[in-house]
């Protein structure tokens, strides 16, 4: 389907710590220009995977290719095309915001000063401020600015919003990704790992859910919302047993029925319609609910 080689190509990746496989046979491919979500609980193997992408860890088995290259053999070529923002960012405390930006720019072939100025303005960051005086949110903002000004081909964000004020975090992730993909969007790819999925609802094109070091679900976000639906039906009388083709019943209370469907919503709707319900509605699950439904369907709130 795609003629270009994927930006990230992970094949049967295994990474062992002692006797534990933190990553245990992961497969994942990210095509250029996408905003890709990497969703998993704490300890699912997200950060270990990212460290393998960046050659901070060597895979125990399997293969990782970045831009078609082996990140261990072509470390500089690969790293010069990536920007990475870890979950906890640290700067030299004695440097001001200005010094820090100049310091990071010094490592890079390109630096978009216009983007830098626009984002500093938008975030109201004072360039004379020492980094040790920045709040956690401001430090993340600064890290994001240093990540996108070099205009990398791949932006890797590891839990970018955890531990931040819920009102500001969503907005500034949106701002940063918008600024990053503003020019040359076919060559600007975002890979974001998070367990705070609701904040990325509209931003994610495609995602992989990782659990126990394995990919358990990879889908386009739109296709996932089409496939996972919650159906609510109300009948004139208690409907008794209905064959629902294996769909998961979330709640059955008297005349009301709530069902979770995975891909066969039309079939289930038809079966319900045959019973002439008074009302019949369906709504898509959010990505966060899809995440919960995939890992533990019992816990989807009816």
């Amino acid at each position: 389907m795609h003629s270009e080689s994927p930006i990230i190509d992970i094949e049967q990746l295994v990474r062992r710590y002692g006797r534990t496989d933190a990553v245990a046979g992961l497969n994942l491919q990210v095509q250029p220009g996408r905003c890709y979500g990497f969703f998993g609980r704490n300890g699912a193997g997200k950060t270990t995977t990212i460290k393998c992408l960046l050659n901070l860890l060597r895979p125990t088995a399997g293969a990782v290719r970045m831009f078609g290259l082996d990140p261990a053999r072509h470390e500089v070529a690969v790293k010069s095309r990536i920007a990475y923002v870890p979950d906890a960012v640290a700067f030299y405390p004695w440097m001001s915001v200005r010094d820090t930006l100049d310091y990071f720019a010094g490592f890079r072939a390109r630096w978009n000063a216009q983007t830098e100025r626009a984002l500093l303005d938008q975030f109201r960051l004072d360039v004379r401020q020492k980094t040790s005086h920045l709040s956690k949110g401001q430090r993340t903002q600064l890290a994001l600015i240093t990540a996108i000004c070099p205009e990398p081909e791949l932006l890797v964000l590891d839990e970018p919003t955890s531990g931040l004020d819920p009102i500001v975090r969503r907005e500034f992730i949106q701002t940063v990704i918008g600024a990053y993909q503003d020019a040359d969007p076919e060559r600007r790819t975002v890979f974001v790992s998070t367990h705070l999925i609701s904040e990325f609802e509209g931003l994610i094109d495609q995602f992989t859910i990782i659990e126990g070091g394995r990919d358990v679900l990879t889908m386009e976000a739109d296709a996932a919302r089409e496939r996972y639906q919650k159906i609510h039906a109300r009948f004139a009388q208690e409907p008794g047993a209905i064959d629902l083709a294996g769909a998961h019943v979330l709640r059955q209370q008297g005349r009301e029925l709530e069902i979770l469907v995975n891909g066969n919503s039309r079939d289930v709707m038809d079966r319900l319609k045959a019973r002439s319900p008074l009302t019949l509605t369906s709504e898509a699950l959010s990505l966060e609910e899809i995440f919960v439904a995939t890992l533990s369907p019992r816990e989807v709130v009816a």
Partner: protein
Amino acid sequence: MRFQLSFRSGKPVYLQLVDQVKAAAASGALAAGEPLPSIRPLAEELRVNRNTVAKAYAELENQGVIQTFAGKGCFVSANNSPYNKAVRVELLTERMDDAVVQAHHLQVGRAEFLRVAEHRFDAFQHQRDRTTR
């Protein structure tokens, strides 16, 4: 124009944008030659990925609803669909089927359904007359 997106509808987000632009063009809320918002600000306002907006605009251009001029942006086309009539009718038929199924489900009969359809034609016409006056 204002867009209303829902992640709950189960309908791909880019298609929601496509349909809303088409509805606005059909009702006259968007007139031929009027510009659509540019991709980045609209994506930020709607809190969606720019790819989603770009995909919607590409689809609208494909369908002949809008035209893109490099460096200037996207504009609503004059009302000429690039499809021939048979194809256009077929596209419409799919939508009609959805409505017919829905009517059946809501126990709205044939006569009532046709009356509603007439009424909607009038409503759009009325809206168009008001905006072009």
